[in-house]
């Protein structure tokens, strides 16, 4: 579905990505992991076209999309959900969601999808008339994922969907991502919550300083001591322990 070949990109003169290679198979869930500031979000922006490539190419569904405008890529079914907190603050929740379906012409199906998003995230139904600028952090996160879904994507790229969410919601979100994947949507998810991400995904990449440092089957990575050392030091893994004690 998505093929990233030797991508270099960055901001202005500053090069962040230095030759990234990745593949996301159709219908699969792939996760991209890495420490703070290693270039995960930058890679997603390069794929969705928010920043230009310096070198390399990106193929989506076999089509070279490197030269396309963001909205053109989006029309092909490549949808990105950015790193939280980027809803339209002065619009209501419902308007935000409807915007997600902007490129679609089938009104009836759009409404059905709206219902589906409300089923995934019932809070949003309660808040449908509220301005999204006043939502709590977690609510906004749900809103932007829901909005991504409204576009009826072939592939969804999620940037840290579980950040700043309550533990219970984290599982819900991941379960929902899984359900979304089951409906045939290809998923690329960037995460800090390593354990959950690797449970969810079939395949994982670990990025460091703008290059892919390690990759492999998620099942293998989760038990790989090297990964554990650099990532599983904290967060959910230890939460379990803390709770047990």
């Amino acid at each position, binding site marked *: 579905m998505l093929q990233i070949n030797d991508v270099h990109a960055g901001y202005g003169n500053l090069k962040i990505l230095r030759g990234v290679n990745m593949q996301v198979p159709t219908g699969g869930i792939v996760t991209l992991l890495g*420490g*703070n*500031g290693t270039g995960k979000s930058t890679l997603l922006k390069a794929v969705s076209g928010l920043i230009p490539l310096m070198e390399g190419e990106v193929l989506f569904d076999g089509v070279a999309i490197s030269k396309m405008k963001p909205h053109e890529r989006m029309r092909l079914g490549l949808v990105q959900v950015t790193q939280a*907190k980027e809803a339209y603050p002065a619009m209501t929740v419902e308007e935000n969601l409807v915007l997600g379906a902007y490129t679609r012409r089938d009104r009836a199906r759009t409404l059905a999808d709206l219902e589906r998003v409300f089923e995934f995230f019932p*809070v949003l139904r309660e808040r449908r008339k*509220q301005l999204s600028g*006043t*939502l*709590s*952090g*977690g*609510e906004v*996160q749900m809103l932007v994922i829901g909005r991504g879904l409204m576009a009826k994507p072939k592939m969804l790229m999620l940037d*840290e969907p579980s*950040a*700043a*969410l*309550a*533990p*219970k*919601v984290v*599982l819900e979100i*991941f*379960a929902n991502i*899984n359900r979304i994947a089951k409906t045939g949507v290809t998923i690329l998810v960037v995460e*800090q919550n*390593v*354990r*959950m991400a690797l*449970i*969810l995904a079939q395949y994982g990449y670990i990025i460091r300083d703008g290059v892919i440092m390690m990759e492999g089957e998620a099942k293998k990575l*989760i038990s790989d001591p090297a990964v554990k050392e*650099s*990532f*599983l*030091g*904290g*967060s959910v893994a*230890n*939460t*379990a322990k*803390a*709770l*047990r004690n």
Partner: protein
Amino acid sequence: MALLETRNLSKSFGGLQAINDVSLKVEPNTVHGLIGPNGSGKSTFFNLLTGVYQPDAGSYIEFDNVEVTGKPAHYIAEQGLSRTFQLLRLYGELSVLDNVLVGFHPHTKYSSFAPFFNGAEVRRQDQIVKDEMFELLEFIGLAEHAEIPAAELSGGQRRLLALGRAIAMRPKMLLLDEPGAGLSPVNVDSLMDTIMTLKERYELTIVVVEHILKVVMSTCETISVLDHGQKISEGTPEFVKNDPAVIEAYLGREMADEDIRAAMDA
């Protein structure tokens, strides 16, 4: 004597009751956790305490034996209540040093007109303060970056600076709103160290909101749990994490990898 006490604290936005009759006490020199589902009102609670929002009628907030209900934010800050924000809100164009100097503002000794009449005194005092703030920057590990604008810091350094700015106020109490969000696991560990050191070194009382349970569970003496604006539980970490109401509303069941995978597939 509690350092901070709220009674019947309420706040509604239009039809939404964001905080509903919360009474809470924080004892001096403790670390107090505040957890709860998203949208349960934790940040709103902080906003009410620090005067960013005005509470509804009937609420009562007392800090350090002074009633501060409905007082303006700067007044409350002057009483010694300091905080960080979920979205940091640093002064992006100011240098790192200036950021902490602004934090020191309530303790400025000269009047705001002094630069006109008594420039020498202003400079003398500023020099003293600057030295002091430099020490603080050394403590949080940003001394090297004192001169660069805050906007040029990396994500993790920004969180540190936000903390530094809050401490520069020499507060009696520090409110931390999700200090660990977005930090990689390694950085979360050093955050916990920092919190404990702060408490000791500055004899601070700290209230921390955090979703990364490890942080609250291992640093807090007491934890309060909010849900839909109401306090649903309070006690030691041990008590809270076994409270069925908290598990139901917030924690969820503790699960092994396989169970999680099964739950996802369900």
